């Protein structure tokens, strides 16, 4: 029954105190949110903490949800804020190579697998604002208008940023492909070979 309700109807119920409806929203969005954070940070544990924080905030700020606004946009707004707060509290120079090497979906050929690994590394190394628009538009399937609203900028700016992100991704991807160390703006610090951390 609850499964046929729209996000907005569910959230309205949560707002009026029917907490269990949040369970349905959790079912719908915890995996996308986890992937949003994971693709931004490369850190599984932190991403899980942040997802938990988002649902905590949804409950805490349920009264500020306006029933005429799209739930998804509101949720991603909360997700961004949760992450920004987290970044603010973060210690200096904690930029680790994600401990787990990127999981790669089963693919047909070894070459494709290799490409996915490189692409993952390239994505993690482009600048964060660009990575964010790529993640939002490509993986979270948000429309540019929704992203613009989320970031508080013009739609045109979002499109430009998507294009720049792809340009930068292409550059980094090439550098990684040719085996050169990347010297751009991405996460700083050592990038040890797999296994050197532990």
């Amino acid at each position, binding site marked *: 029954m609850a499964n046929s309700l729209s996000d907005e109807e569910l959230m309205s119920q949560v707002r009026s105190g029917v907490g269990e409806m949040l369970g349905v929203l959790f079912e719908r969005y915890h995996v996308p949110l*986890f992937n949003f954070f994971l693709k931004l940070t490369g850190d599984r544990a932190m991403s899980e903490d942040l997802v938990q924080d988002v649902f905590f905030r949804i409950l805490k700020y349920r009264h500020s949800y306006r029933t005429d606004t799209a739930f998804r946009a509101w949720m991603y707004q909360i997700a961004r804020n949760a992450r920004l707060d987290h970044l603010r509290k973060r210690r200096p120079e904690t930029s680790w190579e994600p401990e787990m090497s990127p999981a790669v*979906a089963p693919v047909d050929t070894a070459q494709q697998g290799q490409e996915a690994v490189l692409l993952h590394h390239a994505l993690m190394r482009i600048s964060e604002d660009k990575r964010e628009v790529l993640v939002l538009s490509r993986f979270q399937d948000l429309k540019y208008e929704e992203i613009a609203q989320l970031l508080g900028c013009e739609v045109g700016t979002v499109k430009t940023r998507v294009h720049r992100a792809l340009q930068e991704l292409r550059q980094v991807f090439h550098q990684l492909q040719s085996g050169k160390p990347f010297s751009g703006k991405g996460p700083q610090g050592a990038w040890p070979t797999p296994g050197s951390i532990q």
Partner: protein
Amino acid sequence: MNCEQIGELLPDYLQGRLSPALAGEVEKHLPGCPACGEEAALWKNLALLPEEQPSPALESRFKAMLDSYQEGRWEKANLAAEKSKTPAPLWGLGNWRQIPAAALVWACLFLVCGFLIGRQSDRGPTAELKQQLADMQGELAATRQTVALTMLQQQSTASQRLAGVSWTTRLPEPDAKVMSQLFHTLSFDSSVDVRLAALDALSHYAGRPEIRSGLVNALESQQSPLVQVALIDLLVDLHDKSAVPQFRKFQQDPKINPTVKKRVDWGIQQLQ
């Protein structure tokens, strides 16, 4: 159209939101232009990156939070405390029924409560009753200690040992045996996660001088850079100036990981 014009259209093209005529223009351009062509291909290939699944712990944490909200504890309890809850207490709570030793302790607890409620309903609390209550609490605490030790020492999987570590945080006054086992776990557990959890558990007792000096010394035997950083951070948080000599010694270690080196430099700076 030149690359600049195509670049403006590309984002809409990639989301399939161009008119057929403009999409056709983009498609005409792509094969002949390596730069634009590769950008479009990268967009497509991002689909190769898999959708990842979070661990089951996320769901149990969410359920625990929702349960506490449903039970109305939220309105009373302070929200900040709920939020800062780490997953630690939930490892045990979420699956306590599956851990026989934990179930035993819960059973004892329920028994004591049931017994006391029964007694209470007969007559008011007496000195004898209070004594019995104290005895039972003492026994319960001892049982918990044993459970914690058993879980730490004998469990084969990392998640079971994690549950063991989280048990220790529920002991009101863990004894020296538990503490020394926690230090052993911190230095030698095969899983970095379990080591970090042990550090977190020990940090609750960092007020005790012997624990504090144990933490300072633990830096030397620690092999995992992540745990090294966590240790440095904890000692900095504790403003423990006695850690500085150990930090300096550690700084000189030729095998030190470069990131950890930066952190220890920072730590020394903070403590001075």
